[in-house]
């Protein structure tokens, strides 16, 4: 028979470590409250236990109806009715941890307490009398040190035993006095309306006026009134509100229990090692410089372009050598042996489509692993919670979490790990918003675009690059303000009442596991999007209709019977390129698509097929924009000239002839702000974990880019005297007014428990 055991406990109680230990599955271990938002299950390790399923619940402090994690957990416990609960309790922080225990005890489910971090408890000189604790709580208590795998064997055996025997806790009443009487009365009123097993639990929740539970019981109006009467009488007698009464009762009970069972070794006010570290790290004066230093260090190692930048070096090596030479070389040999000639469809599909696509996925992984390794260490040490503490004041102004700083910083190197770094933001809405806006930052691959436009049009002015960063940051800030006013992002205000976990030495295995887990999940869940998109773009580029013949454009262009002078003239006229410079790309499907789609960009000042095609290829990788310009503006390195420069220096003259400064600037802005490359889109999909939200993110970014470019082109152009007043100007003015309205309006105000419904639906 299958046995289901739920693992419940506070964040930072070592729950994830225990889960890994029990199931052996690869899991993420962190030191940041609320890190396990996902539902995780695992089979108990060992052949004899193969029917035992461990359900890891999110780290929670309570079973209140107010946070997503808590609602998910309590819904699971009440509806799935696991056979037993393992309640993991952090022995170094026993009072607050037992608060959840008092609530779990009411569920009438067999429960065993795993008293974790006992090694630290002993080191602190504290003493926990497990026997006294066990007697006071009426259930078994097992000492544990999950990090060192001590005690898990005994825990497993006992947990299975109580599950099989359905042995319920024989707790003394947690709630006493008038409140106890009131709850008894409510039990009598709601009897028959609820599952007998959860009568007591429901009665307590009804007493707390828990709207979610009241809804699910569905009482008649008269019974509701009776319940309400009981509550208000009790409130009057105790001169407090019902929620406070219950919370006080619980903590009073806990104090009684810990007075008997726990002896603190450290004198009051004496500083622990963690306290001493914290005194320096979040110091009023040193706090910010230390934060800046740590962030710079992470950036330097993972993202920077210096000799210590391991991340960048590893990714460059993967892109330029492994997927630039080795893998294509290897496939050349294999395909050669199979007699697949270069220039054929199959060769192109494999080399330019699949190998290049897979390369795009793998290429980001080394940098990501380095970054995640560093972030995991910070989380495990306990510094991440302090980042929120230090940065909260600034970021809350834009409606973002203090931790949104890290994704933005990382995104200046690469948007992919930037998006993935938003993981550390605990609130779901804040996290979504961070994912949606992070890639506005100009990443490394967007720099060549900036270089091309600045060089070709603006004489290499450094102001262009500066403005790109300024607009990126501005977009994030303004988007934060605007989005926060929409219903989907307003909802429950995330209470910033947060635990600052004690610092501790990171676990080597835990950190490596967390790093690998994140890297792998990117490959697994973002990979398919990237490969498929790359193949589609390859197909559009490689195939086309040349003078009535459909096929590989490169091949058809070599056939003089197909490419007649007449056709060249026709194509040259259609695509607006000099006859001497017509090349195969001009006849590709992508060029036709670009030609048809270019009308979309007319209002932005670059409604021409060339920039349209470049924008599309930019989705594969942003630096492709420059490469595509090279092809479209017929830079030919066959004449013995050098390869096209990174910023396309050789084609600057031709580009300059084609664009007015404001149109070029508008083009640059659109490419910087619009949907990021496929790799980043894959990362967004992976992090959003929801199709609707992925599309919403891409749509928002592209829409934002369009609006900003349109305003810049029309209004900027008019000021510069390049664009005449017209319909576009009016649209631009309307858009500016709309933006201002969205920024300064009052915004959606959540009423009561609204928004909570949504939070639950997401997990339903």
């Amino acid at each position, binding site marked *: 028979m299958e046995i289901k055991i739920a693992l419940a406990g506070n964040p930072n109680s070592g729950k994830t470590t225990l889960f890994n230990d029990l199931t052996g599955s690869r899991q993420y271990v962190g030191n940041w409250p609320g890190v396990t938002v996902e539902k995780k299950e695992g089979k108990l390790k060992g052949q004899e236990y193969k029917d035992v399923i461990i359900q890891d619940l999110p780290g929670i402090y309570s079973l209140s109806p107010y946070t997503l994690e808590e609602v998910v957990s309590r819904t699971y416990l009440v509806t799935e009715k696991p056979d037993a609960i393992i309640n993991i309790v952090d022995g170094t922080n026993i009072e607050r941890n037992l608060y959840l225990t008092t609530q779990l005890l009411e569920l009438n489910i067999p429960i065993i307490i795993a008293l974790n971090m006992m090694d630290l408890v002993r080191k602190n000189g504290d003493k926990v009398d497990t026997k006294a604790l066990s007697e006071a709580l009426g259930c078994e208590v097992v000492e544990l040190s999950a990090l060192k795998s001590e005690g898990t064997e005994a825990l497993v055996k006992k947990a299975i035993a109580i599950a099989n025997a359905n042995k319920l806790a024989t707790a003394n009443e947690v709630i006493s006095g008038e409140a106890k009487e009131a709850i008894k009365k409510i039990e009598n009123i709601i009897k028959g309306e609820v599952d007998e097993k959860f009568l007591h639990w429901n009665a307590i929740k009804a007493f707390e006026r828990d709207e979610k539970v009241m809804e699910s019981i569905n009482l008649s109006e008269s019974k509701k009134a009776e319940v309400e009467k009981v509550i208000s009488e009790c409130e009057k007698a105790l001169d407090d509100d019902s929620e406070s009464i219950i919370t006080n009762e619980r903590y009073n009970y806990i104090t009684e229990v810990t007075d008997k069972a726990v002896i603190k070794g450290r004198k009051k006010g004496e500083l622990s090692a963690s306290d001493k570290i914290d005194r320096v790290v*979040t*110091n009023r004066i040193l706090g910010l410089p230390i934060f800046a230093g740590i962030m710079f260090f992470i950036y330097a190692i993972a993202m920077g372009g210096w000799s210590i930048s391991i991340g960048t070096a590893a990714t460059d090596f993967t892109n330029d050598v492994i997927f630039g030479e080795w893998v294509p070389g290897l496939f050349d040999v294999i395909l050669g042996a199979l007699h697949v000639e270069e220039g054929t469809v199959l060769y192109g599909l494999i080399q330019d489509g699949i190998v290049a696509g897979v390369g795009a996925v793998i290429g980001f992984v080394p940098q990501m692993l380095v970054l995640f390794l560093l972030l995991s260490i910070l989380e495990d040490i306990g510094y991440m919670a302090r980042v929120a503490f230090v940065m909260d004041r600034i970021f809350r102004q834009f409606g973002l979490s203090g931790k949104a700083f890290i994704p933005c910083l990382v995104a200046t190197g690469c948007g992919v790990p930037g998006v993935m770094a938003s993981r550390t933001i605990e609130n779901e809405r804040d996290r979504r918003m961070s994912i949606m806006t992070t890639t506005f930052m100009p990443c490394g691959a967007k720099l060549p675009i900036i270089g091309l436009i600045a060089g070709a049009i603006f004489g290499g002015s450094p102001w262009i690059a500066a403005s790109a960063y300024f607009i990126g940051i501005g977009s994030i800030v303004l988007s934060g303000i605007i989005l926060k006013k929409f219903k989907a992002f307003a909802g429950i205000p995330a209470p910033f009442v947060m635990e600052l976990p004690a610092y501790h030495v990171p676990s080597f295995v835990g950190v490596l596991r967390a790093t690998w887990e994140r890297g792998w999940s990117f490959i697994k869940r973002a990979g398919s999007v990237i490969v498929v998109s790359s193949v589609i773009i390859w197909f559009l580029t490689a195939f086309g209709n040349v003078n009535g013949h459909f096929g590989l454009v490169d091949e058809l262009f070599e056939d003089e019977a197909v490419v007649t002078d007449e056709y060249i003239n026709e194509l040259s006229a259609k695509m607006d390129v000099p006859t001497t410079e017509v090349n195969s790309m001009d006849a590709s499907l992508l060029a036709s698509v670009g030609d048809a789609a270019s009308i979309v960009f007319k209002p932005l000042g670059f409604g021409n097929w060339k920039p349209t095609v470049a924008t599309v290829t930019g989705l594969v990788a942003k630096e492709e924009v420059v490469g595509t310009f090279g092809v479209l503006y017929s830079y030919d390195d066959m004449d013995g000239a050098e390869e096209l420069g990174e910023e396309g220096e050789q084609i600057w003259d031709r580009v300059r002839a084609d664009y007015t400064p404001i149109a070029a600037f508008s083009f640059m802005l659109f490419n910087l702000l619009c949907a990021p490359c496929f790799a980043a889109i894959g990362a967004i999909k992976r992090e959003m974990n929801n199709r609707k939200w992925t599309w919403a993110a891409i749509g928002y970014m592209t829409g934002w880019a369009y609006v900003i470019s349109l305003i810049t082109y029309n209004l900027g152009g008019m000021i510069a005297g390049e664009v005449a007043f017209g319909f576009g100007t009016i649209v631009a003015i309307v858009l500016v007014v709309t933006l201002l309205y969205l920024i300064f309006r009052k915004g959606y105000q959540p009423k009561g428990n609204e928004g909570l419904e949504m939070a639950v639906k997401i997990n339903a």
Partner: protein
Amino acid sequence: MKTLKDVEIGQTAVVKKLHGEGPTRRRIMDMGLTKGVEVFVRKVAPLGDPIELTVRGYELTVRKADAENVEVE
């Protein structure tokens, strides 16, 4: 009414009553700031907000705006 916001850094206060309503209030209570508990105001963040407290043997951070809802004596 003296609130947690008024308590100076390095001082200890005893919680008297919790004002306000909704999720934040419940969360503050859930985290152990209940009637009669001793709170030590440990420090303030570098930018002046939020504050760090020691309560029930662990560190908790709350914004000053929320600390204003905690009546102390």
